[in-house]
């Protein structure tokens, strides 16, 4: 994923997941889960990150609870990990919220502040004082000082100082959240407001302490496989960029885990493309000013929770996952379906769709491969029963959805003007609100919205760099037929 300053925290999460899965495979599941924090930080071991070995173990215990699929809110701190492990086995439906904040991992970062550093030269002009519209800056004869009660954190003084002596500190999770859903509570620790959260996972990537955490469904999926159920994997087209093997090897790799069949979600994307192109053409003919895409789960949550007024402009096309799951359930009515996802937001979408039973993200899938000792690049290559188009396989790229609609467009090519929102941020959320409110978008009439910058290949649970993933996805898609040739 995008420059990960927090590779250390990702490695920790992955290690815990592998250990949970290994425990699951062993004869002594619950006890081995209980031992995870002790195995990772045995007596006398080094203390790489926290103040002492006990704190390290406490945080690892929390990571294990989340890895078993529970929310930290469920933890009374006295329940044994082995009991959580047992409870995970009997869970019927996954937890409703995809994310939880590990309270003991959260540092309670200092609140966002603008303050004058000692680089202040106490200059004569004092542009900072003039720049402040709120009278928050005074001078103590040695340097300027900011009255934090008056400061509105607008940053005008920062820009005015010729020495760059004024800095703004941020709370990484709060800064990253596009919708203000995560904030420090009275206890000084971060909390997610579930009524606002769109499960974009940006806080997970932003936090240098690895406190916001996904609740995993690995145990749910592996239990179903162990019980001998028919379990089918449907993988997001972005996965092609995130495993060190060819997509043709996926079928064999998944079957080694115990999945009975494998579908490309690109198959459903081919339906999304046709429906969406048709939808847009109809809307434009009826005089609609623009339409937005509807495939990104975080965007759909954003619409629901924050911009309901844009709903009339959102395409009625269902997501590629929706159509794929529908096909799978038709072909295998008794099967349990598992979506293999680049991000956390899709868990939310899956909860609302009875055809999708579970979601594993790329990191969790990778952890399963490690625990099972599956070398994906030695797996056999097999053909997919359904051949998806180039455009469908390019769906996970920023711009890919817009290009696919263009390829399938049956109207006058000049009527179609695509524009893309490459990443949801506070600023792009504001733009969307303006389009909805004014019913106008100067930039185009097809607005592709993707929450992650770069598209799904840059999802928060990715394993590869975005650049490499892009290359692998386009190498694969270029082998497919194009919808343009089809016309």
């Amino acid at each position, binding site marked *: 994923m995008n420059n990960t300053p927090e590779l250390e925290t990702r490695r920790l999460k992955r290690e815990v997941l592998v250990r949970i899965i290994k425990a699951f495979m062993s004869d002594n599941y619950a006890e081995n889960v209980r031992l995870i924090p002790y195995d990772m930080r045995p007596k006398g071991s080094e203390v790489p990150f926290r103040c002492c070995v006990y704190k390290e173990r406490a945080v690892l215990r929390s990571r294990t609870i989340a890895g078993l699929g529970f929310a930290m809110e469920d933890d009374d701190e006295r329940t044994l990990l082995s009991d959580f492990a047992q409870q995970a086995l009997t869970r019927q439906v996954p937890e409703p919220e995809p994310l939880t904040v590990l309270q003991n991992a959260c540092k309670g970062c200092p609140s966002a502040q603008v303050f004058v550093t000692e680089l202040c030269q106490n200059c004569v002009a004092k542009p900072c004082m003039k720049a402040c519209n709120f009278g928050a800056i005074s001078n103590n004869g040695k340097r300027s000082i900011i009255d934090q009660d008056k400061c509105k954190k607008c940053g005008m003084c920062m820009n005015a100082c010729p020495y760059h002596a004024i800095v703004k500190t941020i709370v990484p999770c709060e800064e990253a959240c596009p919708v203000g859903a995560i904030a420090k509570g009275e206890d000084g620790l971060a909390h997610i407001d579930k009524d606002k959260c769109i499960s974009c996972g940006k806080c997970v990537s932003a936090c240098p302490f690895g406190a916001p955490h996904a609740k995993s469904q690995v145990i749910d999926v592996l239990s179903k496989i162990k019980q001998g159920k028919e379990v089918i994997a449907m993988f997001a087209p972005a996965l092609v960029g995130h*495993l060190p093997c060819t997509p043709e090897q996926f079928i064999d790799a998944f079957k080694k885990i115990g999945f009975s069949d494998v579908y490309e979600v690109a198959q459903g994307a081919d339906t999304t493309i046709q429906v969406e192109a048709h939808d847009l053409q109809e809307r434009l003919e009826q005089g609609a000013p623009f339409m937005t895409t509807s495939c990104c789960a975080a965007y759909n949550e954003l619409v629901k929770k924050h911009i309901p007024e844009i709903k009339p402009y959102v395409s009625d096309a269902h997501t590629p996952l929706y159509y794929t799951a529908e096909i799978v359930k038709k072909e295998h009515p008794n099967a349990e379906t598992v979506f293999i996802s680049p991000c956390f937001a899709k868990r939310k979408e899956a909860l609302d769709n009875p055809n999708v039973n579970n979601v594993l993200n790329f990191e969790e899938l990778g952890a399963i491969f490690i625990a099972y000792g599956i070398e994906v690049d030695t797996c056999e290559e097999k053909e997919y029963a359904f051949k998806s188009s180039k455009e469908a396989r390019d769906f996970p790229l920023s711009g890919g959805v817009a290009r696919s609609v263009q390829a399938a467009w049956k109207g006058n090519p000049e009527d179609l003007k695509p524009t893309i929102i490459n990443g949801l941020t506070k600023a792009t959320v504001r733009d969307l609100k303006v389009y909805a409110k004014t019913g106008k978008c100067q930039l185009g009439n097809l607005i592709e919205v993707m929450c992650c910058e770069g598209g799904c290949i840059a999802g928060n649970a990715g394993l590869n*760099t975005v650049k490499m993933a892009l290359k692998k996805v386009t190498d694969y898609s270029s082998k497919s037929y194009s919808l343009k040739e089809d016309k």
Partner: protein
Amino acid sequence: MEKIKVKICQGTTCFVMGGEVIKSIHDTLVEKYADKIEIVPVRCLEVCHDADSFSQAPYVYVNDEVVSAATVDKVISVIESKLKNE
């Protein structure tokens, strides 16, 4: 002078534990040591298979020396010390 052989593991465990860094190790080394080293992408080196050794992936070999939990800096410092000792 014989080139230093750097084997960067492309196996599944190494990729999952550090796919993001493997690429940058590769790119940095190519840029920095073009003529002094030979980079060989290899399949699973099988150091990851014992009990807990997966947790120390990704692995990189610099000649015969194994670098665990490899990062760009770690690999560079091993290469540097080998270059000095020649």
